[in-house]
C-alpha cells in the first residue's frame, strides 16, 4: 500500500449535510489537542451562499481553520473547509479545487472527496460521516474501507444527527468501523493516528524479536482458525497486510495483545466473520475482476440470448447487490450484446438487497470517478454521463435494472432466472447458510441457467447441483438432472446475511473408543436389518447396505423420495407408517407386508419407522427398518396364506380393500395435482411481486423528481415572499401618500369603471368603497362637469391630459385634471382624474381683483385731485411753488395712508407730519394737544390739505414766520349734533406782530379751508383774523365718513 514516510499523518475527511453544524460542533469538541491529524470538511452547500462555516468551527477548536484553496498542502492539526460552489479532491496531500462546469450543484461531493482521499492516502485515510439527509458518503466510505482506511459514522446523541439518513446509509453497508456519537469520534481518530506508528513498528520488527515470534505464531493460529471456520486459506497473504488488518480489528475491539485477540477469535465466531470480511474486503467496483467479467461476456451472455426472440424475456438476478456496481456492470454487458442483435428480447435484471439505504444509492446510479477506474474509456463514454464530479449511469442501462428489497434467505426466491450473479455475498454467510442459499439458486435458475460467484466463493458442498463452466472465475451451470435434497423452504426464518453461524465448527471427537466403533459398524453392516434414514418429507438422506430388496430405482427423473422408490406393495403401508411416526413421534411397526421381488417371489416384511435420536435444533430424521419374516414364498403360497384363515368372507373384504386402495390412489394423485397448481400460483405471485417492485422503482424516481420540484418551489416561494413584502411596502407608501395629500384621485379603466380612489374623493362624489367597479357616471357628483366625458375621450384618444376648473355653488372650487393611465406596455389603459381643491386660491384671486380695481380707482381719483389742484392753483395765477407744496402735502397724506394700519390714521400724526414739513415740529412755540382721534382715509386727504393751507399761511405770514409768534393746536371730541361724536379743533396763532388780513394765497387757500371741509366732511369752519394772528375752529362729525364706517368702506369703494 502507501509507502510510510516518517512524517506522514492520517487525513480525516468529514462529510456533513443537513444538521451538520451541530454535528461538527460535537465532533470538534471531542477532538483532543494536537491530535496529529489533518481534517478536511466537505459539506453540501448552496452554491450561491457565502459560507461562514470556517468561522463557526473556529469557535470549537484551537486548531487552525481555513477555507480550502487549490494546491494547498494538508498540514497536521489543521482544519480545511470546502468553499462554496466547488468540488474538492486531493492528490499527493494537496487539495484540488474544481468549479462545477454547470451551475448545478454537485450532488455527491462527499463521495468524490472520500474516494479521492482513499486513492491518495490508503490506510492513512479516515472518513467520517455526520448528519445529513441522503446517501452521500456511502460510496466514499466503501472506497476508504477498501483501501484499508478507518471509517466512522455518527449515531444519535446530544449533537444529533438531526438527519440520520446519511450516516445510517453508511453504517448499513457494513463498512463502518465505528458507529459512535459525534463527540466520541475525536478520541478514536487520535488513537488511530497513534496506532499507525505502532503498527509499523510491529510489522517491521516482527521477524527479528521475540515479540515478533509470538506474533508469527499468533498469525499461524489465526490462519488455522480461519481455515476451519470459514474454509478459506490465507497462507498466501502478505503478512504485513494481514497483520495490519488484524491490528485494525484489535483496535476496534480494544484488545491490546495478539494473544488476547486469538483467544477472542476462538470464543466468538462473529469476530472470525468480521476479520474475514475485513481481510477479503473487496468493494464490488465496476468490472472488478476484469477477467471474470470478460469470461462472463464471452461464455455466458451470448448463450443467454441464444434462441430468444423479441417476445422472450431474459431474467437475471443479482442478490445482495449492495450499491449496484455489479448490477450495472452486468447491465452494460447485456446492453453491449443487445447492440449486436436484430431482435431484442426483454432484459430484466433483478437487483435485490436487504438494505434499503444501499438500494437508494444504487437507484441513483451516481458514482465518483475513482469507482470507475476499471471501466474502459469507451464504456465510460457510452454508458456514463459526467455530471459535476460524478458519473451517472445512463438511462438505457438503468432501465434494465429493477431494484428491490429482498432477502435471499428469508424471502421466497425468484424463479425462471437465466443468470444468478452473486459475487462476494456468500463470504458473509456461514457454511450452513451457504448450504441453504446455493440450493435456492438452483431452484431459481431455469434448466441450464448460469451462476456467477465471487473469486473467493465456491459451491463446494453442492457440486452435484452445478457443473463448472469456467472454474477459475466461478462460472457454473445448473444441472437439471438432480433434485436438491429437501424441499425448498418458502419461508425460512431466523438467519440473516452478515451473521455467521452461531455454532462453531467442531472437530470430530477424538476416538479412544475406535475399536468399539469399528466393531459396531461391522455388526451393523452384517447383521442389522437393512434401513434407510429419511426426513419428515420422506427424502432419503442415508442408505444402509442391502436395501435393494425393498427399494428400486423409479421410472423418470432420479429421485430420493422413498415413496417413489419403495417396491410395489410397500408403498401404501410405508406411507401410512411414516405419517403415523412423524405425527406421533414414536416408533411404529407393521407386520406381514407382502413385497414382491424381481424374481416374482413374495417376501413377508415387517416395517418399522422410528424417529432418530436427533441433536437439538436440526431437522428431524426417521429410521426406516425392513425386517424379513420367514422365507420367500411363491405368489400362490402367499395368496393362500393370506386368505386361508378367512376364506369366503375375506374375498369380499379383499375386493373392498382393493376398491378402497384405488380410491386412495386417486386421492393421492388429486393431492399432487393440487400441489402443482399451488406451485404455479406461487410463481404467478412472484411475478406479480416483481411487477410491483418495478412500479415501486418508478414511484421512487417520481418521488425524487417531486422532491427537486419541491425544492424549486421552495426557492420560488421565498422569492415571491420577498416580492410580496416589497409590494406591501410600496402599497403602504402609496396608501399613506394618498391619504396625506388629500388630493382626490380616481383611477378609471376604459369603460370608466372605478378601479380605485383616494379617501378625499368622498368630498367630490358620493362614493363608497363598494363602488369599485361601478362606472363613475353612475355616481352623482357634487357639481356639474358638462365636458367630463368629452375630456376623458380626448385623453383616451391620446390628446394628453386635460385640465378644467369647476365650482360648486361658488363656494368650492376644484381644478380637475384628467391624465392618461399607462400600463406596463405604455398603452393607455384608463384615466387618472385628480380633483385639487383650489377654493382658497380662487378666493384670493377674487380679492386681488377687487384690490386692483380699488387701487386703480384711488389712483385715478388722486390724479383728478392733482388735476383740480393744478387747475385751481394756476387759474388764480399763483406760483408753481404753491402748487408744488400742495402736491407735497398730498404726497405726505398718501404716505400716511399707505402706512396706515387698518383704514384709520391718527389725527396727531397728520398734524405732526405737516409741521415737520415746515421744520417747526420741535419748536417750543408750538403746542399740540388732544386725545387720539382716528380719521378715515377718505377724510384725511381733505383735512390734511386744509391743515396745509393753515400751516402755509402761518409760515408765510403768521405765527411760524416770526420768532415771537406762538401756535396752539388743540382738539377735543365732544358729543354734538344728534348723530354722534364730533371733533372740535382749534388753531390759534398769537404773538404775530402784523398779521396781514385775508391772505391765504389770493383766497384759494381760504376757500379750501372753509368750503372743502364743509363740502367733503360736513364740517363747520370759522376762520377769523384776530389781534395776535389767525384763529380757526373746525368742528366736524366723526361718526359719518370717519372710523365707524370702516367696514362699509372696504367693501363698497
Amino acid at each position, binding site marked *: 500500500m502507501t509507502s510510510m514516510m516518517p512524517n506522514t499523518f492520517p487525513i480525516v475527511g468529514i462529510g456533513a449535510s443537513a444538521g451538520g453544524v451541530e454535528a461538527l460542533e460535537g465532533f470538534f469538541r471531542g477532538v483532543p489537542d494536537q491530535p496529529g491529524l489533518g481534517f478536511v470538511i466537505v459539506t453540501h452547500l448552496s452554491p450561491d451562499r457565502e459560507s461562514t462555516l470556517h468561522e463557526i468551527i473556529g469557535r470549537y477548536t484551537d486548531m487552525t481553520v481555513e477555507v480550502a484553496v487549490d494546491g494547498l498542502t494538508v498540514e497536521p492539526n489543521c482544519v480545511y473547509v470546502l468553499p462554496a460552489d466547488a468540488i474538492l479532491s486531493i492528490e499527493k496531500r494537496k487539495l484540488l479545487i474544481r468549479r462545477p462546469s454547470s451551475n448545478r450543484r454537485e450532488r455527491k461531493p462527499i463521495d468524490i472527496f472520500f474516494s479521492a482521499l482513499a486513492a491518495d492516502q490508503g490506510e492513512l485515510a479516515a472518513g467520517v460521516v455526520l448528519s445529513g439527509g441522503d446517501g452521500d458518503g456511502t460510496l466514499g466510505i466503501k472506497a476508504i474501507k477498501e483501501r484499508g482506511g478507518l471509517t466512522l459514522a455518527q449515531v444519535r446523541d446530544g449533537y444529533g444527527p438531526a438527519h440520520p439518513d446519511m450516516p445510517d446509509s453508511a453504517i448499513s453497508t457494513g463498512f463502518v468501523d465505528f458507529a459512535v456519537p459525534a463527540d466520541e469520534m475525536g478520541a478514536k481518530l487520535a488513537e488511530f493516528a497513534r496506532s499507525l506508528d505502532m503498527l509499523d513498528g510491529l510489522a517491521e520488527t516482527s521477524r527479528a524479536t521475540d515479540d515478533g515470534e509470538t506474533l508469527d505464531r499468533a498469525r499461524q493460529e489465526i490462519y488455522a482458525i480461519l481455515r476451519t471456520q470459514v474454509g478459506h486459506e490465507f497462507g498466501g497473504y502478505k503478512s504485513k497486510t494481514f497483520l495490519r488488518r488484524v491490528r485494525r480489528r484489535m483496535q476496534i475491539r480494544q484488545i491490546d495483545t495478539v494473544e488476547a485477540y486469538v483467544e477472542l477469535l476462538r470464543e466468538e465466531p462473529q469476530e472470525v466473520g468480521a476479520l474475514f470480511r475485513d481481510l477479503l474486503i473487496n468493494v464490488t467496483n465496476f468490472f472488478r475482476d476484469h477477467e471474470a467479467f470478460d469470461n462472463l461476456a464471452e461464455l455466458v451472455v451470448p448463450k443467454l440470448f441464444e434462441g430468444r426472440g423479441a417476445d422472450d424475456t431474459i431474467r437475471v438476478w443479482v442478490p445482495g447487490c449492495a450499491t449496484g456496481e455489479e448490477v450495472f456492470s452486468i447491465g452494460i454487458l447485456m446492453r453491449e450484446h443487445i447492440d449486436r442483435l436484430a431482435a431484442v428480447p426483454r432484459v430484466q435484471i433483478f437487483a435485490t438487497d436487504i438494505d434499503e439505504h444501499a438500494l437508494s444509492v444504487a437507484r441513483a446510479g451516481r458514482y465518483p470517478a475513482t469507482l470507475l477506474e476499471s471501466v474502459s474509456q469507451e464504456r465510460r463514454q457510452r454508458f456514463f454521463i459526467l455530471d459535476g464530479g460524478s458519473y451517472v449511469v445512463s438511462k438505457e442501462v438503468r432501465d434494465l435494472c429493477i431494484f428491490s428489497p429482498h432477502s435471499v434467505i428469508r424471502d421466497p426466491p425468484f424463479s425462471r432466472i437465466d443468470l444468478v450473479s452473486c459475487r462476494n455475498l456468500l463470504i458473509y454467510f456461514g457454511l450452513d447458510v451457504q448450504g441453504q442459499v446455493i440450493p435456492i439458486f438452483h431452484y431459481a435458475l431455469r434448466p441450464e441457467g448460469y451462476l456467477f460467484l465471487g473469486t473467493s466463493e465456491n459451491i463446494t458442498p453442492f457440486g452435484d447441483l452445478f457443473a463448472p463452466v469456467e472454474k477459475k472465475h466461478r462460472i457454473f451451470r445448473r444441472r437439471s438432472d438432480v433434485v436438491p435434497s429437501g424441499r425448498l423452504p418458502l419461508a425460512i426464518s431466523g438467519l440473516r446475511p452478515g451473521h455467521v453461524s452461531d455454532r462453531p465448527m467442531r472437530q470430530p471427537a477424538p476416538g479412544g473408543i475406535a475399536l468399539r466403533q469399528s466393531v459396531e459398524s461391522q455388526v451393523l453392516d452384517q447383521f442389522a436389518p437393512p434401513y434407510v434414514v429419511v426426513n419428515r418429507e420422506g427424502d432419503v438422506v442415508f442408505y444402509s447396505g442391502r436395501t435393494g430388496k425393498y427399494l428400486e430405482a423409479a421410472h423418470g427423473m432420479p429421485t430420493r423420495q422413498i415413496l417413489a422408490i419403495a417396491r410395489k406393495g410397500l408403498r401404501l403401508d410405508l406411507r401410512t407408517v411414516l405419517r403415523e411416526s412423524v405425527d406421533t413421534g414414536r416408533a411404529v411397526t407393521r407386520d406381514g407386508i407382502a413385497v414382491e421381488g424381481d424374481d416374482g417371489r413374495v417376501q413377508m416384511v415387517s416395517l418399522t419407522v422410528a424417529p432418530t435420536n436427533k441433536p437439538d435444533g436440526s431437522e428431524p430424521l426417521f429410521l426406516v427398518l425392513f425386517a424379513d419374516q420367514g422365507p420367500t414364498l411363491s405368489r400362490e403360497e402367499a395368496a393362500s396364506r393370506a386368505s386361508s384363515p378367512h376364506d369366503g368372507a375375506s374375498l369380499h373384504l379383499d375386493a373392498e380393500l382393493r376398491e378402497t386402495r384405488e380410491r386412495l390412489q386417486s386421492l393421492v394423485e388429486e393431492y399432487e395435482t393440487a400441489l402443482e397448481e399451488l406451485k404455479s400460483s406461487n410463481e404467478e405471485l412472484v411475478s406479480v411481486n416483481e411487477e410491483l417492485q418495478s412500479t415501486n422503482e418508478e414511484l421512487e424516481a417520481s418521488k425524487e423528481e417531486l422532491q427537486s420540484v419541491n425544492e424549486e418551489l421552495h426557492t420560488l416561494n421565498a422569492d415571491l415572499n420577498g416580492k410580496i413584502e416589497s409590494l406591501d411596502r410600496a402599497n403602504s407608501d402609496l396608501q399613506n401618500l394618498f391619504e396625506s395629500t388629500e388630493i382626490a384621485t380616481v383611477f378609471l379603466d376604459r369603460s370608466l369603471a372605478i378601479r380605485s380612489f383616494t379617501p378625499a374623493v368622498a368630498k367630490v362624489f358620493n362614493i363608497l368603497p363598494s363602488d369599485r367597479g361601478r362606472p363613475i357616471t353612475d355616481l352623482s357628483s357634487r357639481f356639474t362637469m358638462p365636458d367630463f366625458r368629452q375630456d376623458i375621450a380626448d385623453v383616451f384618444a391620446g390628446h394628453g391630459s386635460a385640465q378644467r376648473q369647476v365650482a360648486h355653488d361658488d363656494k368650492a372650487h376644484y381644478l380637475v385634471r384628467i391624465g392618461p393611465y399607462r400600463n406596463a406596455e405604455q398603452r393607455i389603459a384608463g384615466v387618472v382624474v385628480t380633483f385639487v381643491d383650489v377654493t382658497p386660491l380662487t378666493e384670493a384671486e377674487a380679492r386681488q381683483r377687487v384690490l386692483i*380695481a380699488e387701487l*386703480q*380707482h*384711488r*389712483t*385715478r*381719483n388722486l*390724479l*383728478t*385731485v*392733482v*388735476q*383740480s*389742484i393744478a*387747475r*385751481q392753483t394756476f*387759474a388764480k395765477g399763483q406760483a408753481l411753488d404753491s402748487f408744488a407744496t400742495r402736491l407735497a402735502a398730498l404726497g405726505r397724506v398718501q404716505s400716511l395712508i399707505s402706512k396706515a394700519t387698518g383704514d384709520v390714521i391718527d389725527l396727531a400724526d397728520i398734524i405732526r407730519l405737516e409741521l415737520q414739513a415746515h421744520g417747526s415740529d420741535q419748536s417750543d412755540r408750538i403746542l399740540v394737544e388732544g386725545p387720539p382721534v382716528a380719521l378715515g382715509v*377718505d377724510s384725511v386727504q*381733505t383735512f390734511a*390739505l386744509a391743515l396745509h393751507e393753515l400751516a402755509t399761511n402761518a409760515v408765510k405770514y403768521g405765527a411760524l414766520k416770526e420768532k415771537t409768534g406762538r401756535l396752539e393746536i388743540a382738539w377735543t371730541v365732544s358729543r354734538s349734533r344728534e348723530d354722534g361724536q364730533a371733533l372740535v379743533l382749534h388753531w390759534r396763532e398769537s404773538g404775530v406782530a402784523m398779521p396781514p388780513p385775508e391772505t391765504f394765497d389770493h383766497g384759494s387757500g381760504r376757500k*379750501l379751508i372753509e*368750503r*372743502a371741509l364743509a*363740502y*367733503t366732511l360736513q364740517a363747520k369752519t370759522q376762520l377769523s383774523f384776530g389781534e395776535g394772528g389767525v384763529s380757526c375752529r373746525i368742528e366736524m362729525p366723526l361718526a*359719518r*365718513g370717519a372710523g365707524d*364706517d370702516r367696514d*362699509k*368702506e372696504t367693501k*363698497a*369703494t
Partner: protein
Amino acid sequence: MTERRALEGRRILVVEDEFMIAETLSDILEEAGATVVGPIGWADKALAFLQSADSALDGAVLDINLHGQDSYPIADALLDHEVRFVFVTGYDGRALEPAYRDHPRCEKPLQPQAIIAALSPAAE
C-alpha cells in the same frame, strides 16, 4: 374739439364727493356755458334733490363712489326722469355693475371735452 359754449343755457347737475374735483367739474361746465346745479357730495342729498326739484335738468355728471356709497340709485332716478347723464369715475368698466356698464362714462382724470361732448345737445 367741440363748440366753445356747447352747453349754453343748459342746467347740469354735478354729483361728486371730492370738493376739489367738484369745483373743477363745475368750472369746466360753466366755462362751456352751462348752469351748474350743485355740486352735491352725498348720495342721500342728491336723491332728495331729485325728489323735490325735478325742475328741468338738462344733464348730470355722476361720480359712482360717494363717501363709500354707490350712486346707482341716483342713476336710476335720473333715468326715470329721462335726464341724460354721464358717469365720471376712477373705476374702469369691469368694476361697474353690469347694468350700467354700457352707460356713457368718462374716466378720471377729467377730460373736459369728453364730458362736454357727452352732455351736449349735439350728442342726442
